[in-house]
């Protein structure tokens, strides 16, 4: 049963990684920027969820507030930080992004303390179900269900709606999309808004899972997300989904096999570096001389 428990853990973490990473990979696809500060958005989402939930007594209100606040924040990052830096080489906005992450993380520490914040009432965190000896927590179910709903919704949005189609077209063929009258700036706003909201939901669920939000919540996840989007072939949503789930599972099982000599959190990077050595252009990149 232990192995099945691990699979549940792996899949639920994979779902969290996927929601976290999809915004990152889309920003890369659109702007060629590694949006490291996406992790700060993730953390912000987690804080908003816990603070609003504690103030109002409703976790649902917490999530609602988070998906309103973080898209605005994501758009602000684009407008104020990235847009003016687009004409420089991509390393420049990336380093600014790293600076923003470090700054925000410290700001969370200063405002809400080193120890972080816990939910005042959080029945969800401690509810577990038992299926024939396999334990699964309510939050894990929530992670998996939310991710499934979110990605199904995203799929419908990008295949059925005008706005969604324009968005997808802009990510893959910016010039052609523009010639069909898709406004690239609007697409960018949309992209930051949706990506940020997804990260916030992931952050809130992780907060529920741990029953804690501390300043480092976004930190490790964020770097893993960077590894994931490279593994998934930068800019590809499907690749990111697959890479996230694979990483979640590999981490869950990897702890048994290589946990003795390598930190669990470093596994993603081992995979990343091995992949880049074998396929320097990522899974799906084009061939160049």
């Amino acid at each position: 049963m232990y192995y099945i428990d691990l699979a549940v853990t792996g899949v639920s973490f994979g779902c969290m990684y996927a929601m976290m990473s999809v915004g990152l990979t889309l920003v890369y696809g659109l702007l060629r920027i590694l949006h490291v500060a996406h992790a700060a958005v993730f953390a912000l989402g987690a804080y908003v969820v816990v603070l609003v939930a504690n103030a109002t007594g409703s976790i649902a209100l917490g999530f609602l507030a988070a998906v309103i606040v973080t898209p605005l924040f994501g758009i602000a990052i684009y407008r104020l930080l990235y847009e003016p830096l687009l004409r420089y080489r991509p390393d420049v906005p990336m380093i600014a992004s790293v600076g923003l992450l470090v700054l925000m993380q410290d700001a969370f520490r200063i405002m809400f303390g080193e120890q972080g914040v816990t939910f005042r009432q959080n029945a969800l965190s401690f509810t577990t179900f038992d299926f024939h000896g396999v334990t699964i927590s309510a939050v894990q179910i929530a992670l998996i269900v939310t991710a499934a709903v979110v990605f199904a919704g995203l799929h419908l949005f990008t295949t059925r709606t005008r706005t969604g189609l324009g968005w997808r077209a802009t990510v893959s063929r910016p010039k052609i999309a523009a010639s069909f009258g898709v406004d690239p700036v609007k697409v960018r706003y949309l992209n930051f808004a949706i990506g940020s909201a997804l990260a916030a939901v992931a952050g809130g669920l992780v907060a529920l899972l741990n029953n804690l939000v501390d300043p480092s919540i976004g930190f490790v996840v964020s770097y893993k997300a960077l590894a994931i989007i490279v593994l998934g072939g930068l800019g590809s949503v499907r690749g990111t989904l697959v890479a996230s789930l694979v990483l979640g599972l590999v981490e869950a099982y990897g702890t048994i096999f290589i946990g003795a000599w390598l930190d669990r959190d470093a596994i993603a990077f081992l995979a990343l570096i091995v992949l880049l050595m074998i396929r320097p252009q990522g899974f799906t990149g084009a061939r160049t001389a």
Partner: protein
Amino acid sequence: MSAYTISIVSIIGINVILAVSLNMISGFCGQISLGHGAFFGAGAYAAALAMVATASVPLALLAGVVAGSVLGILVGFASLRVRSDFLAVSTIGVNFLFVGFVRKQSWLGGEMGISGIPPTGFGASGNMIMILLLACATVVFSLYVSRSWMGFAFRAVGEDEQAAATLGIGAGAYKLAAFGIGTALAGLAGALYAFFTQFITVDAFDFILSVMLMAMVVIGGIGSTWGVVAAAVGLTLLPEAIRFVNDYRLLVFGGMLVLVIRLAPGGLAALVHNLFARTRKA
């Protein structure tokens, strides 16, 4: 000189070596590395082990330099294969891997690190003088490199590898050289750090340190040796001089990084340069 002053000056010296060496990789040669802490750490661990085993300062220095540069050249090979934005992610990965690996190794002391590193025998001020001499040597070397044909070729490779190739400059060899030199110096700094603290844990070499070093390079003005030296000294002293900065170190450094890139992407060196240009014209 008080013990406090000696320790501050020593740390400044070590940070100058680290920032100037990172500047050779990222500033001169345009290879963005966000994992400089790993090479620093590799040097520190190697030097610590060598000290514990032999108590010989020259051997420990050598061990630090070799460990830093071997790891660096390995990463340099990666830089030959991947695009520049992949490289930044890979170097972050190297930093996490280094920390994640060392933490689990009992022969490296695991979480507890290595303590009881034998003293160099020079005393605290003797160590400080050694650190300062090596820091000065590093600065002089960096200035020399930037004036030599190597620095010239680095700039070309950093700006456009294909254009460099059409002038007969093979980017690969130069990128490896930049990584080799820069990480050897980081390893040297690691050895000095091990002498200075006589006690190392892996947390001293984490990704945050790498970000701090990148902040020094960017704020000083990427590519400018003097700008980077000034930033390394300033950013090391700032938290000591101002209590607020010490409590909110990451807030301040992160904020400065964002502001400098946003308002003056060329860093302090470019600001000073422009100021001079303007006063000269006036």
